[in-house]
């Protein structure tokens, strides 16, 4: 099967590491994997669009998801869920949003208020089959001491909701091979995400 995942969030908050975990896990499950991973200027606190596209080996698939064509959008920051809607459509796309706003400084300077979670849900609703909002970062901070584990917790939640066609074992193996520090806490966060999603 083909399955298109978009990950979005803010540069420097672990989006790309999470992308690599997903890609490696899919590779262990014998998918062919493609994806975009931007570096450099775009990374400095800007928004990061990243993709993971799973498909069989006998197909040529390009690295970027097409407009209106994502199956799953993992938004690690709520405001960025709205911008990611470019890749979403009502009949197909599921949003999983981490309710941990990182308010851009330009909102301060230009006096543009940050939208409420309700407002964000409302705006993406025209582009979503389902919208899940969870407090992944906050939960991770309370349970394991750092917000960053919220990223892997999100994967656990998505898995439990049937949104990731990748096995749990492969995700755990990929976490072990990818995450540089605190592998145990990341795996615990993944398992907590699984519980929260069940």
């Amino acid at each position: 099967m083909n399955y298109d995942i978009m990950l979005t969030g803010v540069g420097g908050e672990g989006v790309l590491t999470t992308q690599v975990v997903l890609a490696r896990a899919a590779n262990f499950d014998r998918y062919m994997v493609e994806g975009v991973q931007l570096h450099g200027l775009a990374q400095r606190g800007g928004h990061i669009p990243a993709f993971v596209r799973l498909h069989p080996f006998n197909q040529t698939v390009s690295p970027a998801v097409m407009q209106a064509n994502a199956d799953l959008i993992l938004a690690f920051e709520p405001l960025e869920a709205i911008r990611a809607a470019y890749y979403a459509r009502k009949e197909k796309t599921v949003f999983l949003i981490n309710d941990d706003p990182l308010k851009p400084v330009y909102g301060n300077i230009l006096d543009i208020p940050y939208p409420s979670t309700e407002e964000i849900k409302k705006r993406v609703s025209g582009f979503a089959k389902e919208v899940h909002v969870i407090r992944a970062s906050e939960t991770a901070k309370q349970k394991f001491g750092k917000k960053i584990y919220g990223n892997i917790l999100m994967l656990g939640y998505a898995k439990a909701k049937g949104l990731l066609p990748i096995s749990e074992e492969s995700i755990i193996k990929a976490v072990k091979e990818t995450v540089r520090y605190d592998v145990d806490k990341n795996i615990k966060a993944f398992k907590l995400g699984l519980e929260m999603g069940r």
Partner: protein
Amino acid sequence: MDLLKPAGKKVVLLGNEAIARGALEAGVGVFAAYPGTPSSEVPIALSRVAKQRGLIFEYTANEKVAFETAAGAALSGVRAMTSMKHFGLNVAADSVGPIAYYGTKAGFVILVADDPNGWSSAQSEQDTRYYSRMFKVPTLEPSDPQEALDLTRFAFDLSEEFHVPVFVRSTTKVSHVIETVTLGKFKKPKTRGVFAKDLEHYNNIRPGLQKLHRELDEKIKKIEKKYGKKINKVYNKNSKQKIGIITSGVSFQYTMELLNMLGAKIPVAEINMTFPLSEDFISSFIKDKKKVLVVEELEPIVEEFVNKTAKKVNPRLVVHGKDLLPSDGEYTLELLLPVFEKFLKRDLKLDLKAHKRKYDNILKGLPPRKPVMCYGCPHRSTFYAVKEIFGDGPHVIYPGDIGCYVLGIFEPFKMQDLVVSMGASIGIGHGITRVSDQDVVVFVGDSTFFHAGMPELATLRFHDGKSPLVVVLDNHVTAMTGHQPHPGSGFTATSNPTKAIDIAEVAKALGAEVRVVNSFNQKQLKQALQELKEVKGPRVLVSRGECRLFWKRSMAKKGLSWPVFEIDQNKCQKCGVCTDKFSCPAIIKDTSGALPVFKIDPNLCWGCSVCAQVCPYGAIRVKKEESK
């Protein structure tokens, strides 16, 4: 580490890692580079494995030195490589032509990563394939990480077989793409060689020059003959359709996916060698066609060649390309789809325009998220102090340069009035100062100073009169591209300690009046700026403060914590200096109540203390608990 997994394994690699792996499989012995995104991860990957694989790895002061280092090794019989971004080739260019004439002994490969759409570059969307033609350097062009690996490995063989340097040209959507890649076998690197004197061959004074030129032309013809048909590929070969697509680079990937979506099995030619283009290959592809579409990002290089070839073999052929597709930016599936639909006379009936209109609607009134200097960035502090002393408006010009500080172009500073090329802030500032009474303060980074700033600074001492104030933003590393060391860092590419060159001493030797300050100390900054404001001749402020991201990572590695700051709500007068003028992203203005509330997010504060120094009411102080 996936980069070193054994042959036959399927692993997920970044395009640039795949290029690094290709070089390792070719047994590269010497690798030298100056980092430049989107090529940076090639040297990053190789620097991590250099000791283990036994190759010589170096960062150099700029791309020209890197190119020459690799060329010297290759001329001495050791397989060598360098990598650079498109603009890097402008810097190296001076040496590329002569080396192409000389040729090489061992394989010599130059990876050049173009950046259509400017994901990691401003300035221009230049197309390296023009350089291929100007310097007559064979150029291989992968469409994805697997081809990037295979073609890089092959580039060494090609270079060695014909004794020419070879470009591998990638773009952002090849270099910064991850893909499942099948690995090949390593070749053990050879790192010792000898330069064999040969004054007859290396004599490039005429008529030797013309002889070398003729020899290079001969080599290019031979490469076209031997590999032109072999290296480029045709897909859907058995199709009887009289229409076809000719494509290269990542556009090949989009093409195949779109044809699959549209259910169209028409012949597709993938050009893997964009210089020399093969007349035989193109002729045999187009001779029985009625029309073709050429899909290539940036300039119509393949298209012009197809037109030229069609005149000879199929003058009635209709060639589409840049008449339907843009020369600027990157292609995407959705950009290409309507063109493919028109070309194939099919319609998927996806109303993407309506979708886009609906999407634009939900974006209204959202706060923008442009890239921003990090929490605690030393550059923010320096920009703030310079603005305090020199002000804002038409009387003061702030030429900028290439590095993280280019982000000073955005609010609230807007202190990068123009950004041209590495080190150009000084030259442009000098030119303005020659004709205008405006104040000129230029910003240049430490790595950029070593890269191209020194000859610029030397020029200032070389004439009488006023000079711009040169502010060197010294954060100790090449931060923008991933914290690579430079000659002032004090450690080498493979993390061995080395003697750091002191920028202040260099600036003094180049004839400037110099002040050195701590970037995190506003008082020092302002005093030095005030003093240098009165100096007429060459003047340099070295603002030293370690890249806070690099600092934070090393603190985290050591398991150390740091004091974080908080705002005393009783003292805060809600003036907004910390958010609207200083604008550290860790400081949040909560406007949900009747009056705004200013807070520091303790999860985000990296403890630089500068906000406490700029607060006019002394309302910012160290918080009791610490953060990691």
